[in-house]
């Protein structure tokens, strides 16, 4: 249980990476942008991959009537997410410490993992909703109104994950370093839960 608890302490700490590294990255490449424009999505706000990418993405998007990219103050998420991550790290580390002193069982570890996973899915859902709004809520006075082959208005929602061709742009959306750190951290807590469970089973066998 000691080994499991140490993993449970270390795992949530990996989430701290989200304060520095981006969670998600969306790249927009086109022939006239051989150096692709890019957007790093941090839990606390958006940043261009290169310094002026946000200005240049907004400049392009106004032709098709997309909103400008949100500033920190435009979205409650950028205030809330860092708090949630902080709380979850604190709770996770506390559970690990308590586990180390055998005050709580491994089930708490799995519980933390489940809660974090649930919140992660909610986060992804929220992110997707925003992408949807960003890509479809277009200015009716937009300069260019493009339609699909079937006559429906074209939308510009970037993919949640993966690549899509959008007009002349190749849009790729992938988890970034912060997300990978979170993933590693969460896997550690899952392992902690697993080790705790094995340990508990062994104890039970010994007891029998």
């Amino acid at each position, binding site marked *: 249980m000691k080994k499991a608890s140490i993993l449970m302490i270390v795992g949530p700490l990996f989430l701290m990476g989200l304060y520095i590294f981006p969670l998600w990255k969306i790249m927009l490449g086109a022939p006239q942008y051989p*150096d692709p424009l890019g957007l790093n999505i941090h839990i606390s706000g958006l940043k261009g991959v290169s*310094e*002026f990418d946000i*200005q*240049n993405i907004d*400049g392009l998007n106004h*032709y098709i009537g997309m909103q400008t990219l949100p500033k920190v103050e435009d979205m409650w998420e950028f205030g809330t997410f860092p708090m949630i991550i902080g709380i979850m790290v604190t709770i996770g580390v506390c559970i690990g410490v308590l586990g180390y002193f055998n005050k709580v069982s491994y089930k708490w570890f799995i519980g933390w993992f489940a809660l974090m996973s649930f919140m992660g899915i909610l986060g992804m859902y929220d992110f997707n909703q925003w992408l949807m709004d960003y890509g479809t809520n277009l200015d009716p006075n937009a*300069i*260019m109104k493009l339609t699909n082959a079937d006559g429906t208005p074209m939308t510009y929602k970037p993919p949640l994950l993966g690549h899509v061709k959008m007009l002349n742009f190749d849009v790729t959306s992938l988890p970034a370093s912060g997300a990978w750190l979170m993933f590693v951290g969460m896997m550690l807590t899952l392992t902690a839960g697993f080790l705790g469970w094995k340990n508990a089973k062994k104890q039970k066998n010994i007891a029998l």
Partner: protein
Amino acid sequence: MLVSCGQQNQSSNGALSSSAAEKVYVAPGEQDEYYAFLSGGYSGNLTVYGLPSGRMFKEIPVFSQFPTSGYGYSEETKPMLNTSHGFVPWDDAHHPDISQTNGELDGRWIFINGNNTPRIARINLSTFETEEIIEVPNSAGNHSSSFITENTEYVVAGTRFSVPIPQRDMPINEYKSNFKGSLSFISVDPEHGHMDLKFQLLMPGFNYDLSHPGRGKSHGWFFFTTYNTEEAHTLQEVNASQNDKDFIAAVNWKKIEEYVNNGGGTKMPANYAHNVYDEGTHTATTTMKKEVLTVDPLKVPGAVYFLPTPKSPHGCDVDPTGQYIIGNGKLSADLTVHSFDKMIAAIEGEKFDGEAYGIPILKFEDVLAGQVKSGGLGPLHTEFDGKGNAYTTFFISSEVVKWELGTWEVIDRKPTYYSVGHLMIPGGNSRKPFGKYVVAMNKITKDRYLPTGPEMEHSAQIYDISGDKMELIYDFPTHGEPHYAAGCPAELLAPKSQKIYRLDENKHPYAVTSPTGSKVVREGNEVHVYMSTIRSHFTPDNIEGIKVGDKVYFHITNHEQDFDVPHGFAMIGQNTSELLIMPGQTKTSVWEPKQVGVWPFYCTDFCSALHQEMQGYVRVSPANSNIELSWSLGE
């Protein structure tokens, strides 16, 4: 069978050889290995080409007004062309040279001379923009210029024409012993590159034709070829070609620098312009300088010597080791090579062969390293490959001749098309030439390209010199009359090439860094329009309250921060050019409306899908009208 085998062998040495086309082919999207900067001669500008493709990338305006970008037309760049003769919007640009550190190209700046109204320009190789032009007083025909020493300590400006110094009203036929030739040493600030005329050597009244700095062991010396040591003043074609030998003037500039630093030299009244472009304010300013420090060479013993050189030498080139000084007698068939070591030994042994105006003349035989007996006609210029070989152009016999330093043996010769002047090997004027290509610049084009009337662009030839024999691999037309060129590896410049000007660093006094700052201000009959541009509109785009007789200044700031997205601005009836404003930059254009009406302006650079819509109107009312000044966008 034997025959076919033999043929097969012949064609299959092929893995190593490739066709000329393959050697110059740079596939679409791929980039050249070298930058080549060719002077434009009478275009007054500098053109940038790629090697080996021969593709022209850019024309950099230097001494000439350039309507393409508004250089010399915009209020910010007009001061660049100020001189003591007033606004001179043209020159004859000859010899570019790239800055060096420890004798190797450092790729910070390129310098070029204006020959006609003597000037030296410095161009920043991050922005490829002319940043500074200094006029050279007491000089005329700034030809033996703008070569630089191996740590860019100095850029020189030697006069081609000797003239009365100071200028005065006097009979021309009293030229002899009254005219003087000035050799100007312009110091270069190691950090900012700013130029300052440190001293001017007042030499006998010969014509100072070309020059090159010493390097390595001869660092600290500068060598100038002369012609007209006869000091003829008329029909020089004949009268300046009588002496069998003219001179190479060897100048120990370190010695003179020391003399000057210790308070030597004579201050002389002068009047010359120093024009500096400030990248922060995007604006050039002119300072008129009133004084120049002159040095009489006789006051600094041991600073100047004459090396006799046959026969009206033109080119004066120093090899990468600094040992050999090549003087090409343009009326001779042979090349004369002087030895720096022998020169020093002769000076120390005081083996003089008389003097000219008190300057010691060394004995020809004492300084001669060797002669290249080439059989060509009219040798002009020599460059080096860094592997012990030299390449000399022969103007009259139209060829490039490769020969070996030390043995003076001719190794190879190839024709040029036609009447070649200078040639260039990247890094040619440095300790480290990049001896892969040589570019020959010709004066006559004849049948090389499709005819385009009596005037043809000049042609340049690229030779592959990586093997024992030179191979002509390409020729291409050039713009203007390229004299010399400078070249360097692309990797030296491409990574630090500037892509935009940062809007947040724009210190132009009339810049608007946010569209909300746009405004129109009247000051008497001057109206200042603070305008911003971004794809695809001007702010403001409707202006009213302008009156006939007003002087309207459009100060336009480009708000793009994206590489290669300039916006243009042109106003109908303007007596100047359009503007081309780079991202983050501010430029000003003046318009003096003479007729009432509603007059359009528009963007001249296709900037976006809605470029054509990027336009606006100015309403011009009669001079006595009382219409209020107003401006708007989107109303």
